[in-house]
């Protein structure tokens, strides 16, 4: 079967059990993500969305349910698939290797797997970098880059790896609003250039609608799916759609759902503090 990156999450559940206190992180989540789809999961902080991503990536395991990719079982209770290059992750806190140059960071995945030669990888890396306005930073160390540059480099590193599915865990969380809007457009440009299944996590609703083909709202802990909406705004998209009536209507529709959950999360936090 061809690996196209269709992801099927069925009744997925994850219960943490530290010292006998059951914490339900993910509760009966079922999602069908189509091959090549840009799927965004939105939820309040601590709702279990990162847990779900970690299970798909192979860093964690389920306590109930199953996840299949292209019909092949990926994760089920007690079974954890090794993390692998078919499911490359872009991490919230950033994970460029500080001891290697930008170019090395970007080319290490495909070269390590022996898919392409070092020279071909370097050529491809330069094309990717130029596409998002990062020409000439190849020989810098990651620490010399700004936050927005680092995020773009890390996304390119993941795309160069040519995964079946790209997993992005709140990648733009630490960026300021202006940088964020530029980097979001760059992500879309890269997605249009090199389309593949994307599973994107965020707590920013505008970001979700702007980027996604479909947006799912996750409830506060225990995290389950509250609502899934298709974003029928054609691609390629740019920042001008942010003020279109279709965008605003979706934002209003989803905004209400997410606000309720944020409110519940806030109140739960207040209770825990009291």
């Amino acid at each position, binding site marked *: 079967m061809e690996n196209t990156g269709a992801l099927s999450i069925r009744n997925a559940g994850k219960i943490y059990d530290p010292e006998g206190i059951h914490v339900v992180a993910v509760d009966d989540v079922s999602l069908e993500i189509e091959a090549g789809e840009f799927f965004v999961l939105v939820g309040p902080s601590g709702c279990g969305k990162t847990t779900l991503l970690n299970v798909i*990536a*192979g*860093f964690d395991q389920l306590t109930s349910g199953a996840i299949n990719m292209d019909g092949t079982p990926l994760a089920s209770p007690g079974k954890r698939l*090794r*993390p*692998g*290059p078919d*499911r*490359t*992750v872009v*991490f919230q*806190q*950033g*994970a460029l*290797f*500080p*001891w*290697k140059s930008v170019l090395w960071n970007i080319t*290490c*995945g495909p070269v*390590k*797997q022996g898919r392409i030669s070092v020279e071909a990888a370097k050529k491809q890396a330069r094309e990717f970098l*130029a596409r*998002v*306005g990062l*020409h*000439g*930073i190849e*020989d*810098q*160390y*990651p*620490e*010399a880059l700004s936050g927005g540059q680092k995020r773009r480099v890390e996304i390119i*590193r*993941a795309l160069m*790896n040519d995964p079946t599915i790209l997993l992005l865990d709140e990648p733009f969380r630490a960026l300021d609003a202006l940088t964020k809007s*530029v980097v979001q*457009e*760059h992500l879309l*440009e890269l997605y249009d250039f090199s389309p593949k299944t994307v599973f994107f996590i965020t707590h920013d609703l505008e970001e979700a609608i702007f980027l996604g083909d479909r947006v799912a709202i996750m409830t506060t802990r225990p995290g389950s799916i509250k609502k899934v909406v298709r974003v029928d705004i054609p691609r390629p998209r*740019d*920042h001008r759609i942010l003020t279109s009536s279709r965008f605003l209507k979706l934002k209003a529709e989803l905004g209400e759902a997410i606000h309720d959950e944020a409110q519940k999360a806030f109140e739960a936090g207040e209770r825990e503090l009291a």
Partner: protein
Amino acid sequence: MTDQSVIITKSGERRSAQPMRQLTSSNRFIRWLKSLWGLNLLLGTISIGTILLFWEFAATLGIPGLKDVPPPSAVIAAANDLLVSPQYWNGWLLSFERIGIGFLLAQLVGIPLGLAMAMSRPTFGTIFPIIELLRPIPPVAWIPISIVFWPTREQSVIFIVFLGAFWIVLLNTIGGASNIDRVYKRAALSLGSQPRDLFWKIILPATIPSIVTGMAVGMGISWEMVVASEMIAGDTGLGYLLWQSFQIGAIAHVIVCMISIGIAGYLSSALIRAIGGFATPWLRLH
């Protein structure tokens, strides 16, 4: 191929495509020199000059305590004496040799052991209690037992130097290797690395800065140890020469030896800094 100096992205944003200006070590050195030039240089010369003058005439002025210390002129005379003596230069050579061997052995044992302890719980559990038992004993306290244990004096001196550098490099390696952010390991696995690759790809490079810190501190302790053990157990080296000069009452020679050991320690630290900078080029930005 066209050479674009400005890239205009889809959103119309203009972006400089010039690589960022790098602060190279040579122009940083020049800036450092410039900052020294001028007022600081003047003040430094005055303060050191005053102390030297005061010291020179302390005996004439009859200052208690200082009147038995040879003045700078006597130290210079002693230096002229020592600088042409083969025993003096041989002392440099032998002390450096002992430092070299003892320090290197400490790295060769300490770094792999520290990495093994950080990566394997059973190894840590087995070895850590022994370390905590032995580490509080100052290396100097090992000198007598070392003389008894090792067949030659040379070996006992090297052993003491080894101990001086060993604990600190071991602890720094353990600390560095056990505090690596797991996100790097996860990223490597997610980019196609096998778990067995993680040691060379992640654990080792991420630990190097801690190892370099351990080496820098360890080198300082090594010099203390080589001087102390040469005084007690040696019959050559700068520490021995210092002690021998003291015993025959050649205090000016003692001071020359002190200054020489200071210079030797400084040169060793500079060497470690250079090696450290070479091993961690990504940290030169800071």
